[in-house]
């Protein structure tokens, strides 16, 4: 830390030794100790006894080459030849604090360089580690985008034809088969809607309008009725009349996802309670539940906690995005083998 001082003080000692040498040879005709405006000095013998001193402080640390005492810096030079019997020459200068500032500056520079280096290194490493993950997400996104286009027409045809079929003339056996086809087609349709929304429609402009939530929920429950009945799930509705300004397509995606999850992850013969209040919507099921530590991650894209059910794991990610957009909070309470409760508040 005294690197600059060391060089200067070393120079002073060199000059002072030359003067001491001269005085040594002319002693005792000359007895005036050499003085210098730039520094104060002292000479000590090998027993550390002062021969002559101009220093402010007599406390000398003979074991150090350079050190700070109070506001002074001491530099100690051990002489090769003991002029005037002096083994130690001590040079004292005022501490101008320059070394302190310079040391701080040096530390700052090194810390900055190290920080920059580690940041760049960290970024490169992170990029390297995340690349395979990012690649697979991009691939999945592209795949979804490409396939959703192709799904629309056949899916619409299937659903339209199921609706048009005359169930009255069908045998019970065929009617059941048709119901199953209908359920399967609606499941695919929900998935298709999610994927389309995710890849194509999320960036479109909102068409906010006054929505009667009660009506929408009833419609969507009816839409999923066949699916619920197939698992003998009983859906109970406690709906108050609530109006909300929101994009119709978006609120349908939220409700569809919540209901379809409640059905999908429910047990056979289970129940679903949908409670709509003035400032909240609760969808509660008696399903398999989610482990507590996984609840925080359920809104992550492509996150699926139960591989026994189909899907891409995009549903709740869409729900969260939409709700965040409209500043609606979502909370999930769940217990394994008891069920899950999703609470929306606005």
């Amino acid at each position, binding site marked *: 830390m005294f690197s600059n001082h060391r060089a200067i003080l070393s120079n002073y000692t060199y000059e002072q030794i030359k003067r001491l040498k001269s005085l*040594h*040879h002319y*002693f*005792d005709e000359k*007895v*005036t*100790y050499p003085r210098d405006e730039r520094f104060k000095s002292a000479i000590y*013998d*090998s*027993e550390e*006894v*002062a*021969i*002559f001193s101009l220093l402010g402080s007599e406390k000398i640390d003979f074991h150090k080459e350079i050190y700070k005492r109070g506001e002074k810096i001491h530099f100690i030079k051990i002489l090769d*030849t*003991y*002029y*005037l*019997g*002096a*083994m130690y020459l001590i040079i004292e200068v005022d501490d101008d604090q320059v070394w302190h500032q310079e040391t701080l500056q040096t530390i700052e520079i090194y810390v900055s360089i190290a920080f920059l280096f580690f940041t760049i290194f960290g970024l490169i490493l992170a990029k390297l580690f995340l690349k395979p993950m990012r690649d697979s997400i991009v691939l999945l996104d592209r795949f979804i985008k490409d396939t959703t286009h192709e799904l629309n027409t056949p899916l619409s045809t299937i659903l339209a034809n199921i609706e048009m079929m005359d169930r009255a003339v069908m045998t019970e056996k065929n009617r059941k088969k048709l119901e199953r086809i209908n359920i399967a087609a609606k499941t695919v349709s929900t998935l298709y809607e999610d994927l389309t929304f995710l890849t194509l429609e999320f960036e479109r402009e909102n068409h906010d309008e006054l929505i009667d939530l009660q009506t929408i929920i009833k419609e969507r429950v009816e839409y999923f009725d066949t699916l619920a009945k197939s698992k003998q799930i009983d859906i109970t509705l406690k709906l108050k009349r609530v109006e909300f300004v929101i994009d119709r397509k978006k609120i349908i995606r939220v409700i569809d996802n919540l209901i379809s999850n409640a059905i999908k992850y429910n047990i056979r013969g289970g129940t679903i309670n949908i409670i709509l209040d003035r400032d909240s919507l609760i969808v509660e099921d008696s399903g398999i539940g989610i482990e507590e530590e996984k609840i925080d991650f359920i809104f992550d894209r492509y996150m699926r906690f139960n591989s026994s059910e189909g899907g891409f794991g995009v549903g709740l990610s869409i729900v969260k995005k939409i709700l965040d957009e409209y500043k609606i909070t979502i909370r999930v309470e769940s217990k394994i083998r008891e069920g899950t409760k999703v609470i929306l508040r606005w």
Partner: protein
Amino acid sequence: MVKKTIVLVLLSVVSYSEDAYERNCVKCHEGLPTTLQRMFMNYIETYSSEKNVKIALKHYMRYPNKNISVMSDLFLKSFALKEPLMISEEELEEAINIYWEKYKVIGKLK
């Protein structure tokens, strides 16, 4: 007879009025070109402290050796090595102490 006695008494008074340093050192060095002051400076230039100088001096007085002399080879060649100083321990120490006090640098610099 009286005259002889007076001279003897005077001589012994003069002799004992000199100190150990003057008796044992000054007289021998009178004929040398290098002063005792210069020799002292050579001693402190080599041995630095009072303690070391006195030890070195005492040793050299008893056992003179050109290898440990503070004088130059030229000086030793010109004036030969001194004879060992065969005086009492007290006398030698006294002489060295006086020598140190006479020429020491400590307290003389301004």
